[in-house]
């Protein structure tokens, strides 16, 4: 596609449930990033993939969060036993090989609300 796409655009769930958020990067981009943005804040790094492997997962807040990219393209962010504090916009970004002169290209985000 022309840009990074994310599905769903909105997700409402109940505390304790499991959710999956999907990211389709720009075709041919090997680097993929997940960020979380709370209201009034800048995006906060979660995890970065280079190809199929997680090159840096230092931003994942705890072991309830997990992300995969099995074929080096689409990525899924998985959150177990959701908590109200997980409510935020989850942004995905991609870049050709890494963060270079054109930065990272962001998708529109998935707004997650945990009731």
């Amino acid at each position, binding site marked *: 596609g022309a840009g990074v796409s994310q599905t769903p655009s909105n997700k409402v769930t109940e505390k304790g449930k499991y959710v999956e958020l999907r990211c389709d990067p720009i075709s041919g981009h090997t680097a993929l*990033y997940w*960020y979380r943005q709370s209201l009034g804040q*800048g995006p906060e*790094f979660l995890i970065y993939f280079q190809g199929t492997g997680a090159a840096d997962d230092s931003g994942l807040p705890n072991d309830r969060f997990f992300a995969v990219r099995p074929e080096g393209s689409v990525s899924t962010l998985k959150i177990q036993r959701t908590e109200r504090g997980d409510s935020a916009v989850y942004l995905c970004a991609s870049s050709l090989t890494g963060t270079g002169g*054109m*930065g*990272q290209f*962001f998708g*529109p985000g998935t707004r997650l609300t945990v009731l």
Partner: protein
Amino acid sequence: EDQVTQSPEALRLQEGESSSLNCSYTVSGLRGLFWYRQDPGKGPEFLFTLYSAGEEKEKERLKATLTKKESFLHITAPKPEDSATYLCAVRVYNTDKLIFGTGTRLQVFP
């Protein structure tokens, strides 16, 4: 600890009233400073990358500059369509992630 601070948090301008947004940073080793624009309900949109002190980039009414401690985004004769949140981010050595500031919310009134 690597840190990015943006000021002001919010800025209201009359159409045509030029101003500047500030991004100060404290990092272990700068590998790029990035400016993004974010409209409500959308993801950040790339504007500029700056790498070294003294560097400047321009695009329409926007000009970004960089020193060893801060970056400025100058907005000349803004229009209402420039209203958005402007985010500053840094990339530091040995990582590929971006560290963002909290942004400046700009409103331009006709």
